């Protein structure tokens, strides 16, 4: 078995550092909520639909609550009161609030016990959604069996959900285990979730609850036909992290891209907003058993994959610690990394094996998400195809969990149907040809691979010590990650963050927390 001679004590040290870094951030998170987190509560309470101007009702209600200067207590209690007052269901009450037939500021006095009872009833429904999808996923896994790792993960990105559906069926037919619908570029900057089925997008397809439903239904049919569990992935990132997680839970998605720092670094979303939202989104994922995929691979597209390899490791450790804080079990932590070293570097393959094996050993129970080359992909598709062959070899040799199939046409366009087929043909070939490669060889303890991994781990430890000293928020402001500088009060979405009042209420979060990690 490939094994790096790592010291258990050092692993202990870096994990402790990461845990303490995450704990500091958690202190901040626990005192705050955000507009999108409150919208998430509404969605799980059953509020759906849009106003006549196309504004999602959850957005409209949070806006009204802000206008009434009541946001600091959270939306749960005032919404429960409004429901008592109207005697209607969730979406109907939302409409009544929107139309001004009921106002948050004029709900009058309702006995606190009645309000609490209503909140409990709504919360039970919300938790019921998360528990239902957890069981649905378990049943599917029992019925079809789980594929062996590495899972083959394929993207579709036509912009049109109905074309995506055709592409997804084809990818499943060629052997995909997981389908990811790439989001339309810049959706992460929208402070709302678009509504309904969509057929226009740029570089991807809008994440909407209806689009989730359409693709889920298609993949469930394909699962039946192929007698394999085909999983579905989307993106819980940007300004609507927790809301997307709620929609994903409602529609039985299996995985979500979800990173504690990605939005801050790569989309310039305010860090306070991101930390608050990622927590609630992950609490939902943990309860709904949605695997998260973190975004460390992105560091290597902006920074050098050798010089800054340690930032990937440091970030994985932080993402793991924050995931644990949000009650994610290890088997839900698809920590990210990537095969992004310049192919002209001598022994590129040895570097990649070293980095991939380091991640494998640091997180033995996590289904690591391993990304193919993108930055150094050539417009010579034949060359790029060969690069993917080596990537496939590293995946199987180091037993990665979630394998994002590389595309020969990566540097040219979003994949064509035949690009996916060729990619999977390559992947299937290598995974079979080198099935037991990893268990037949040992890593020389004094060799290049072992020394390189030790170097990266040492650098990661030094980085974490620095981050620990100043705190994560300050470290990000100083450009510790991805060579990107983000200030604590800069970026998008800060206005949507607020300090919780003494009587703040979010029973969903409270119950998930009280009941702990679920089997």
């Amino acid at each position, binding site marked *: 078995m490939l094994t790096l001679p790592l010291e258990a004590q050092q692993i202990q040290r870096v994990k402790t550092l990461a845990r303490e870094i995450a704990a500091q951030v958690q202190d901040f998170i626990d005192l705050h909520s955000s507009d999108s987190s409150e919208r998430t509560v509404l969605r799980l309470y059953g509020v759906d639909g849009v106003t006549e101007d196309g504004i999602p009702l959850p957005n409209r209600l949070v806006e009204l609550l802000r206008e009434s200067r009541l946001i600091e207590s959270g939306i749960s209690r005032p919404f429960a009161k409004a429901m008592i007052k109207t005697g209607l269901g969730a979406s109907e009450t939302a409409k009544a609030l929107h139309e001004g037939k009921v106002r948050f500021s004029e709900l009058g006095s309702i006995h606190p016990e009645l309000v609490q009872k209503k909140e409990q009833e709504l919360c039970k429904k919300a938790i019921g959604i998360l528990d239902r999808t957890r069981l649905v996923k378990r049943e599917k896994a029992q019925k079809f069996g789980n594929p062996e790792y590495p899972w083959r993960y394929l993207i579709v990105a036509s912009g049109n959900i109905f074309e995506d559906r055709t592409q997804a069926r084809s990818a499943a037919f060629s052997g995909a285990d997981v389908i990811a619908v790439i989001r339309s570029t810049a959706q992460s900057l929208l402070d709302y979730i678009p509504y309904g089925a969509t057929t226009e997008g740029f570089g991807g397809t809008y994440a909407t609850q209806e689009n989730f439903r359409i693709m889920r239904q298609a993949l469930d049919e394909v699962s039946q036909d192929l007698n394999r569990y085909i999983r579905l992935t989307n993106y819980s990132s940007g300004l609507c992290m927790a809301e997307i997680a709620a929609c994903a839970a409602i529609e039985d998605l299996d995985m979500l891209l979800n990173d504690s720092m990605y939005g801050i670094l790569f989309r310039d979303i305010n860090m306070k907003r991101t930390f608050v939202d990622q927590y609630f989104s992950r609490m939902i994922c943990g309860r709904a058993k949605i695997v998260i995929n973190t975004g460390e691979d992105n560091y290597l597209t*902006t920074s050098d994959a050798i010089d800054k390899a340690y930032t990937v490791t440091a970030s994985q450790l932080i993402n793991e610690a924050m995931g644990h804080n949000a009650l994610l079990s290890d088997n839900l932590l698809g920590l990210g990394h990537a095969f992004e070293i310049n192919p002209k570097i001598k022994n590129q393959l040895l570097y990649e094996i070293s980095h991939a094996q380091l991640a494998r050993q640091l997180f033995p129970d996590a289904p690591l998400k391993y990304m193919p080359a993108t930055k150094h992909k050539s*417009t010579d598709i034949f060359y790029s195809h060969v690069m993917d062959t080596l990537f496939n070899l590293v995946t199987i040799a180091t037993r990665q969990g979630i394998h994002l199939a590389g595309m020969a046409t990566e540097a040219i366009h979003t994949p064509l149907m035949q690009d996916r087929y060729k990619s999977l043909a390559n992947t299937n070939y290598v995974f079979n040809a080198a099935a037991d490669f990893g268990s037949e060889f040992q890593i020389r303890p004094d060799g290049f691979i072992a020394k390189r991994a030790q170097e990266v781990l040492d650098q990661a430890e030094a980085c974490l010590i620095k981050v620990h000293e100043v705190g994560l928020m300050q470290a990000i402001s100083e450009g510790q990650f991805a060579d990107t500088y983000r200030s604590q009060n800069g970026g998008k979405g800060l206005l949507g963050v607020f300090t919780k009042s003494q009587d703040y209420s979010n029973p969903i979060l409270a119950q998930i927390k009280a009941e702990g990690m679920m089997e």
Partner: protein
Amino acid sequence: MSDNLIKPYGDTLNDGLVQLSFTLPIEASARARKAAEAYVAKLNFEEISVTHYKKIADGFTYFVVYARAIPVLDYNLIQAQEVESKGMDFYEINKQIAEKFGRKLTVVGATIGTDAHTVGIDAIMNMKGWDGNYGLERYPELNAYNMGAQIPCETLLAKAIEVKADAVLVSQTVTQKDSHIRNFTEFMELVEAENLRKNFILLIGGPRITNEMAIEMGYDAGFGPGTKPSNVAEYILSRLMEKQGISR
């Protein structure tokens, strides 16, 4: 009759051999194979050989085909405007800027519109550069401002005016539904509306960009895949010398 008629080359001059691969929306079968052959014949090929076909989804078949192209092309009639490069390096370019201008040149770059990809603009501008070729931020004789991705056209132009840019680099990676063309056009229209076209050298870049495309849209030049930071720096230097009538 031209003496420069050409055809694709396989292993013998004028054999016209071409490799094709494509997908047809039909179920894999002997009939599908025939259909692929017939379709390639319509594209003006002969001696068509479908070497591989495979079902890749219900109702879709993938083909690999070899065929001989029939038409010939008179190469003498083909003209293209390539960005001229003498292959100057980092040191030579900095030296020339210092000598010819006696001041630092200013360059602003951004990925505009909704496109979130910084990969192109970063490859050219970031300190590190790529493939061992330093990025523009590293050039001591350049003030380089990389604004990143998803920058509105107005913001990019405002920055260019603010820092008195000599050159503006506009990057686009996403090309779905020709969004790159729309974005490039929007920026150019904005510059022209403000009557500022003469103030800047305007360059575009991205994986699907050609120099012709750039010139057609009114830009000075366009840079496609494989472009090194030094190619862009050299172009800015020589174009600015040309514009200001400075001799080489």
